């Protein structure tokens, strides 16, 4: 067994495999399938200050090697989170990260303050890239000044590890990454979903109630990987890479491109056990290639 441990800011992860927000529920839904504690970390479903009903059905459309979703941050809000979800995830012996969302900067701040007080949550992932909400969301992640501002304000109130999750729907993602880095992000994670659309040609209607939605899955992997590579070169803080990872070899591509850890999203739907398989596959790869530690391959792309 190779050493799989990685550090993101001052947090230690058993291994570089984290499950992505919105694709892993609150972890408990996976207890039947895997030992959640074997993961490097889990990012809980996107949370907002107040309860949100999310968008109307239909929220999902399958596309070639991917899917569109338009969930729209359905969640029960911060109060419910603290009362019901937090206690349920306390028992996990892994990094439990909360995905923090808002329509306004004030929302983000208020939620971050609340989560800051939860002892067992060592980090938040500031989602400035949700494409499925009318206000806020992706707007923060596609403009440098807005990304800077929200990061700066949240940094002021949040004292633990602050990960900022970037939107791929931009001309220059390295620029946004630098903007959030210099305003206090301890790490960046990317990519969130790509804004996409699907049409039912026979019925001549959009397949999603919201017309557009977020594209995820293997289809986006080449673009996500390029962005992770660009960002890893642009910033000094650790990068958490994701987008279409389906197997260990995909995860290794992101590590080689410079990611210190990876997140697995859509693949959890296809195979609820994929995350632990990826961990085993990375270990196997390191052994086959005679690396003692996963750190030996991070950024190890030979040019």
């Amino acid at each position, binding site marked *: 067994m190779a050493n799989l441990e990685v550090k993101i800011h001052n947090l230690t992860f058993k291994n570089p495999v984290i499950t992505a927000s*919105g*694709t*892993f*529920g609150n972890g408990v*839904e*996976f207890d*039947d*399938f895997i030992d959640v504690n074997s993961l490097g970390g889990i990012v809980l*479903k996107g949370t907002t200050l107040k309860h949100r*009903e*999310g968008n*109307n*059905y*239909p*929220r*999902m*459309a*399958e596309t*070639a*090697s*991917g*899917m569109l*979703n338009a*969930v729209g941050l*359905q969640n029960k809000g911060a109060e419910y989170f603290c009362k019901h979800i937090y206690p349920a995830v306390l028992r996990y012996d892994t990094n439990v990260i909360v995905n923090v969302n808002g329509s306004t900067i004030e929302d983000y701040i208020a939620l971050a303050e609340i989560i800051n007080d939860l002892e067992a949550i060592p980090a938040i992932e500031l989602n400035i890239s949700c494409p499925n909400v009318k206000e806020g969301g992706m707007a923060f992640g596609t403009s440098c000044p807005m990304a800077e501002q929200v990061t700066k304000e949240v940094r002021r109130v949040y004292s633990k590890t602050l990960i900022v999750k970037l939107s791929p729907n931009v001309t220059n993602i390295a620029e946004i990454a630098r903007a959030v880095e210099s305003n206090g992000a301890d790490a960046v994670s990317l990519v969130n979903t790509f804004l996409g659309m699907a049409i039912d040609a026979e019925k001549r209607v959009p397949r999603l109630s919201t017309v557009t939605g977020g594209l995820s*899955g*293997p289809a986006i992997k080449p673009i996500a990987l390029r962005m992770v590579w660009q960002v890893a070169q642009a910033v000094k803080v650790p990068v958490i890479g994701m987008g279409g990872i389906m197997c260990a070899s995909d995860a290794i591509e992101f590590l080689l491109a410079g990611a210190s850890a990876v997140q697995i999203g*859509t693949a*959890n*739907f*296809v*195979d*609820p*056990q994929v995350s632990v398989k990826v961990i085993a596959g990375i270990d196997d790869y390191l052994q086959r290639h005679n690396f003692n530690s996963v750190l030996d391959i991070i950024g190890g792309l030979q040019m």
Partner: protein
Amino acid sequence: MNKRVGQLQLIKKIKLNYNNYLLEFKADSILSDIKPGQFVNIQIDRSPSTFLRRPISIYDVNYQTDTISLVVKIVGAGSETLTSTEPGSIIDMVYPLGNGFSQPKAGDKCLLVGGGVGVAPLYLLAKEMNINGIKPFILLGARTAEDHILLSEFNKLGEVFLTTNDGSLQVKGFVTDHEIWSNSLNFNKIYCCGPEPMMKAVAAKAAKLDIDCEVSLENLMACGFGVCLCCVTKTHDGHKCVCTEGPVFNIKDLEWQI
């Protein structure tokens, strides 16, 4: 009682009509926890058009031999590939999923209403009722006589009434056009599965007649076990996931305009 990822072997395939197949699988686990109305989520292959799993209701379970039967209607690439799989093949499924139908009370007079391939989950329900001493009335609708499947199976479990849209078998029209609704049979409970317009029409009847009614929904799903929040339906208590809080809902909880 756990959800699991299983490797099931297809052991029998029967063509029911031009586009419906019955598939029987040998499971790799004991099936005693499976309830009528639950479903499995099947990995087809990983071709671009069938990237996600496909949910299919459990039609029958043999608790002795640990086999599961499904009825699959061909509507697209996934169902096409699945039904062209040859016996002997191993199929990856997540199961059992969903809540299932509620148990009728002893002495309840039950009507099962099925449309098209929606008859599938009603079979195991009817079987269980029989075990518990209830002979359900079974009302099945389909487009034509040819579209009616598994009639001889249902005939063993209760009195069967049929409608066809074209009148090619028994009553012409929709299930709601059947005279069973006007005969004063005093049902206590209706269980329904079929196309959404049919379920809504049945729900309207049930509401009018003030009969307790459960319907099994078939919303589009990405995960099937409650984590993606894609499969929601509106209830009086907000959006609920069809895959975990359904697929069976009592119509009194749904925000249906009926």
